């Protein structure tokens, strides 16, 4: 009886905890298998590196990655030289000696280059829509990685019954199914150095892996520490419980 009550209490609290998650489910996305799932998951280095290539070649033309630095690429296994070379491929604004605005090649210590100087420039270049910053996009959308993947692979022909807005694109994963962003990924759009075939799905998967890393650069360290700490706490719980039993052994209660 007592156990049942404790369980029902736990269930009740669990229900409260999960309520917001349930409340926001509108479109469901097929669950993908990610290398970073689960308590021992890590970022697939090769996929994340391919994803960074897709990001730099495609996404970065419209989307910023303001919170991240080129040096962060180290976390997906790139060497310093490679990072320097990637950064040098982008120009970032600076002020010249005479005080005028100028540009210089980016360094690893620079933030990822933002494609537009400010929000107004971004909006006017994109038909009034603002391409969101992607630094924490995986955390900033319900559904996370699965949602971003569904969005990137969700383009298609609009059903004939649907009236599309000017400059809008059909996407089955997007709320309202009309999205300002034109289809970003097409088969063979980039050429992968490791010979992986660059299908839309492959590129989507890679770039989502990369963006998941950028949104959670601490994830691997977090899980490693977490596993150790949980093991330690399990041990401590056992030891403490044994001591408690011993202390209470001579008490009738």
């Amino acid at each position, binding site marked *: 009886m007592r156990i049942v*009550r404790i369980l*029902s*209490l736990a269930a*009740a*609290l669990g*229900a*409260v*905890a999960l*309520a*917001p*998650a*349930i*409340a*926001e489910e509108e479109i469901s996305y097929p669950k993908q298998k990610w290398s970073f799932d689960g*308590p021992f998951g890590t970022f697939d280095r090769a996929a994340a590196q391919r994803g960074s290539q897709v990001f730099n070649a495609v996404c970065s033309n419209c989307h910023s990655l*303001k*919170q*991240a630095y080129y040096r*962060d690429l180290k976390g997906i296994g790139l060497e310093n030289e490679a990072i320097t070379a990637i950064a040098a491929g982008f120009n970032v604004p600076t002020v010249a000696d005479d005080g005028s605005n100028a540009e210089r090649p980016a360094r690893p210590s620079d933030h990822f280059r933002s494609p537009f100087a400010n929000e107004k420039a971004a909006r006017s270049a994109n038909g009034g829509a603002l391409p*969101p*910053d992607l*630094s*924490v996009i995986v*955390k*900033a*959308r*319900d559904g*996370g990685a699965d949602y971003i993947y569904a969005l990137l692979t969700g383009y298609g022909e609009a059903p004939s019954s649907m009236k599309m807005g000017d400059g809008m694109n059909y996407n089955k994963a997007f*709320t309202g199914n009309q999205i300002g962003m034109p289809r970003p990924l097409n088969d063979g759009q980039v050429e992968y150095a490791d010979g992986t075939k660059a299908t839309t799905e492959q590129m989507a998967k890679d770039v989502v892996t990369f963006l998941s890393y950028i*949104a959670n*650069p*601490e994830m691997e*360290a*977090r*899980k490693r*520490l*977490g*596993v150790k*700490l*949980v093991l330690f*706490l*399990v041990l*401590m*719980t056992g030891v*403490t*419980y044994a*001591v*408690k039993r011993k*202390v*209470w052994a*001579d*008490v*009738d*209660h």
Partner: protein
Amino acid sequence: MAGLHKSEFANPVVNWIDTRLPIFTMMQKEYGVFPTPKNFNYFWNFGALAMINLVIMIATGIFLAMNYTPHVSMAFDSVERIMRDVNYGWLLRYVHANGASMFFIVTYIHIFRGLYYGSYKAPRELLWMIGVVILLVMMATAFMGYVLPWGQMSYWGATVITNLFSAIPVVGESVVTWLWGGFSVDNPTLNRFFSLHFLLPFVLVGVVFLHVAALHITGSNNPLGIDVKSPQDTLPFHPYYTMKDSVGICVYLLVFAALVFFAPNLFMAAENYIPANPLVTPSEIVPEWYFLPFYAILRSVPSKLGGVLLMFGAIAVLFVLPWLDTSPVRSSKFRPIYRNFFWVLLVAVVVLGLVGAHRPEGVWVVLGRLATFYYFFHFLILLPVLGKLERPLPLPESISRPVMAGGGGPLPGGAAAKPMEKI
């Protein structure tokens, strides 16, 4: 009056200090040999857990504040910098953010334990009321802390909640402008929230001290709800309850760690990873889960002022609870009818939580109103009436008695059937 304390500690340093300031004697009295009912169950851990949680929040909060920038153009980025670049910054922030949820889980269990076992009844009324003050200060602190990362939910949550004060007749608008320091939630608001969010936890420490001080005057309640009659009913706090609390702390830390390390964003709205934008309202403004029941009460009343009054009333009613419950019996164990209504209340609060998480449409509106009605009915009508009508079960003679009698005790047969020569 004035005069040196006659210390009994053998250690000369301890003795020297204790003679001049008897803190060691006090600790020994209040936490060492303090007589504590021997029949606590694990629900009596949650007060200690809440205290530990407060310490964790203050510790992580102080170090977070060293890296946080309370300015609308930098707050979001400074939090991201903590997450990305500050050594163990992610740990500090995730512990602090999830610590808020843990704090409320622990505190709500602590409160419902008090409701079930009648811990608010004489002579512990003041102890209970101080507890309600703690809850209020906690809520204010949590609310202001949630605004600091300056995400979309921070901004709009702050807008919605501060706007509640505009429901006050006549001066409402001026009060809201004063709270904001402007004409919308903006930099002045963020700055003052940071200042108060830093201050209030220390106020909390003071109020918790009063809570514990009051507890040590009346002594703890216990699962049987009867008074301690003889020394046989009690155990010294140390080592019995220090050890029992330690077990609870370990389990609590396990749950906490699972959350922080493996699901750190479980309780966080995705929306709050989007920087605040005063021109775009999120599709749904949902407060943190621990405010959902109150939010549901707010929304279940069609009138704005009525909703605000009822929401604050939901807490105000707790203040007078010791006088609303007319039953002389504390523990629900001996209140066969009240016991069932306790569970109904719990279900009503959970339902309110679910209602708060959903758009106020269709069945949710009805459910919200029913649960709100029950909440107030329970405290304002049921408790006063039931106390007079209900026939409580016979109370045991003393805390140690039911064990010796071999029945009616909190533990099943095995323990009770043991030979009893020890006591």
